[in-house]
């Protein structure tokens, strides 16, 4: 029996300034593969389709269960998490038991809005910088035993929890038409985190500072409400709701500041 294989076309780049090129690999097919296992298969036998010796592909991954946020990349042109992207589905088998179409090629490319480190790995540290800029933390007094925290209604927890699920994958930024070099937009994730901390009873002491930060250039005003973020977010964060709420709060803060400063 001849081995069934699938073709994967990978956009590669040996370094930040190197020229990009594509390389096609042919990989033995097994049911239930995901993109990370497929990349592992290439590492096991790094040989391009024409038989030429190649090298394992550089990419980010860690948890392999869509919780660490490492493995975002463009799969067939769309931003997705590689570990939760199933090969069978990409090959057209939407329902269980359907046969995937092995003649289709899967294409992999790095996220397009972030500087490429190498191959599929990109530098997404801008998100962490943005989180610093909005002070996305609760400024506690200290870690010693200061007794229980104030009580909090379950409703607040229910509203905060989904926002706290953000895995910093940056997909919401990648898919946002406003997130680019020219606008320097912060992106939806940071706005959602601002809401998360503003909602915390203790975290809200920094509320005004966060709102002022978000009124800076590249701030919340750059959002054109394209809503791609909320569609693409792998963790289904209520991003447009957060943008709306924070948009109002930032405006009110600006008006207040105008009259008091």
């Amino acid at each position, binding site marked *: 029996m001849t081995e069934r294989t699938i073709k994967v076309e990978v956009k590669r780049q040996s370094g930040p300034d190197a020229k990009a090129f594509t390389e096609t690999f042919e990989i033995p097919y097994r049911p239930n593969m995901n993109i990370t296992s497929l990349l592992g298969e290439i*590492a096991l036998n790094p040989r391009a389709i024409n038989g030429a010796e190649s090298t394992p592909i550089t*990419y980010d991954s860690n948890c392999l269960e869509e919780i*660490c946020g490492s493995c975002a990349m463009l799969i067939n042109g769309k931003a997705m998490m590689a570990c*939760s992207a*199933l090969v069978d589905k990409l090959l057209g088998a939407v329902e269980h038991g359907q046969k995937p179409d092995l003649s289709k090629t899967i294409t992999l490319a790095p996220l397009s809005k972030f500087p490429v480190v190498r191959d599929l790995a990109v530098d997404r540290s801008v998100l962490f910088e943005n989180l610093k800029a909005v002070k996305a933390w609760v400024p506690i007094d200290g*870690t010693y035993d200061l*007794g229980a*925290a104030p009580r909090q209604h*379950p409703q607040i*927890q229910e509203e905060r929890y989904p926002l706290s699920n953000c895995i910093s994958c940056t997909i919401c930024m990648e898919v946002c038409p406003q997130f680019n070099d020219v606008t320097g937009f912060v992106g939806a994730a940071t706005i959602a985190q601002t809401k998360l901390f503003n909602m915390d009873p203790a975290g809200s002491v920094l509320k005004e500072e966060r709102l002022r930060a978000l009124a800076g250039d590249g701030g919340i005003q750059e959002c054109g409400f394209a809503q791609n973020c909320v569609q693409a977010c792998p963790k289904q964060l209520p991003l447009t709701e957060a943008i709306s709420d924070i948009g109002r709060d930032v405006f009110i803060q600006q008006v207040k500041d105008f009259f008091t400063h």
Partner: protein
Amino acid sequence: MAAAPRIIVIGGGLAGLSAVIKIAEAGGTVDLFSIVPVKRSHSVCAQGGINAAKDLKGEGDTVLKHFDDTVYGGDFLANQTPVKNMTAQGPAIIDLLDRMGVPFNRTPEGLLDFRRFGGTLYQRTAFAGATTGQQLLYALDEQVRRFESEGKVKKYEGWEFLSAVLDNNGVCRGICAMDLRSMETRTFAADAIIVCTGGNGAIFGKSTNSVVCTGSAQSALYQQGAFYANGEFIQVHPTAIPGEDKLRLMSESARGEGGRVWVPRDKNDKRAAQSIPEPDRWYFLEERYPKYGNLVPRDIATREIFKVVYEDGMGIDGQPMVYLDVSHLAPEKQHKLEGILEIYEKFVGDDPRKVPMKIFPGVHYTMGGLWVDFNQQTNIPGVFAAGEADYSIHGANRLGANSLLSCIYGGFVAGPQAMAYTKNLPAQVGDGGHAAELKRQNEKNSALLNNKGTENPFKIWRELGENMTKHATIVRYNAGLDEADAKIVELLDRYKNVNLSDKSQWANTSFAFTRQLYNMLELARVIVKGARLRDESRGAHYKPEFAERNDERFLKTTKAAFVDGAPSISYEEVDTQYITPRPRVYTSS
């Protein structure tokens, strides 16, 4: 020491971040090294919750009961002093996390909600939805980001710890690390270092752990003279979703709600699971344990599934898999399992509400680790360890939801203790061994890059994983362990012949992996050797040839030292001053 102490923390999981926070808060400065951005550390994977005896449910839970449950659950192998301290600090740690903004689930009155976990009778586990580890890690990450923005912490994300820098007296004076982007190797001076590099599931190939959980850092330190303790204790979770690249946890609650484990009676049955009629299904747990059925304790379930697959050859399609079936459950019950069923659906592509899930036990947690004293210091002066990377809390078996607590506790002890240690540290003589260590690591690197062999490192790793999973996980036989060790020795030999297809000097991940692989091989020997010598059954370590616990010979901590290139095992008494060991019997699930 005159100047402010310089401390390096390696690892940005819960343990590492806890240590960083304590040091920064006390006015120290910290360099934090992590392979992955700290927010992507393995701790994000934890789902269930974190234990602390806050007794908010009026059940009369106490710290002492938590202490007892932990020691009993660990089959009395844990030193009792640190366990006692940890459980005592539990409630304060939960309060702290709450103050940091962790979105813990709440009662209608606005208090913390608690759920019950395995190994206890009390509702002692605080939780934030089904992503507690993620929420805790983020809370600590945010605090560290705050200190970072205040200049108290400097992060070296994307740097890999290679080894400690030791001076002529064997005192730690810093670390040698590699920038995984520029592949540059450098040494960094420090008065003390804290190693919080997590577990070592990758040694078993596939596990529920994350990719960076290779145990490489611990192994490197072991090869530099640190003791590695209780290496043979590896927790295997009964129900994980076998994946092409990883085993994803399927929580026990699936069985709690009525899920049933079975395989086809005929091993050649090729029918789709749903169409196999009831009489052709073998509910082996229910058959063998009529009283507890599918809810037998974790280790028993794990062993039974293992036997069905490997001894009876009854795995589905000859694969190491059995069915975990919730498709017969009423929709309300299925709804309670929504979160975990979605994970299955997402990764397997089948709807577990209609199709039985395919599951298999998966390597889950490393009870063993770097040997530390009660101050979290290893036997190398100036090297501290905390979290899953040390061995201190869980003995022979970890209770669910105790690990997150032990990580934070460990970091909270290690940080201040490291600060205290630096106060009396004599000044360094000469360069403290920096030049020599850098040279040693650079030589290793160039040797690897210039190797002209034929072995693919990923193939060696795959064989290591298969070998370890087969012989050193659920059921262990001395003959098998001998075989396993021989295989590792063979792999170490083949490693000499390893060939890197990628010899570039920029973000070369396979190079970094190949370096880690060597350390995995050395640590694998520790696990196998420890298991080979421990002729008893205790906690996660089960030998059918020695099915009983043997306190007389083995109520002892295994300590492995790297002597002449091989593990040399010695034993140390266990601190049992508070609770006298008693038999561990499962009277209920």
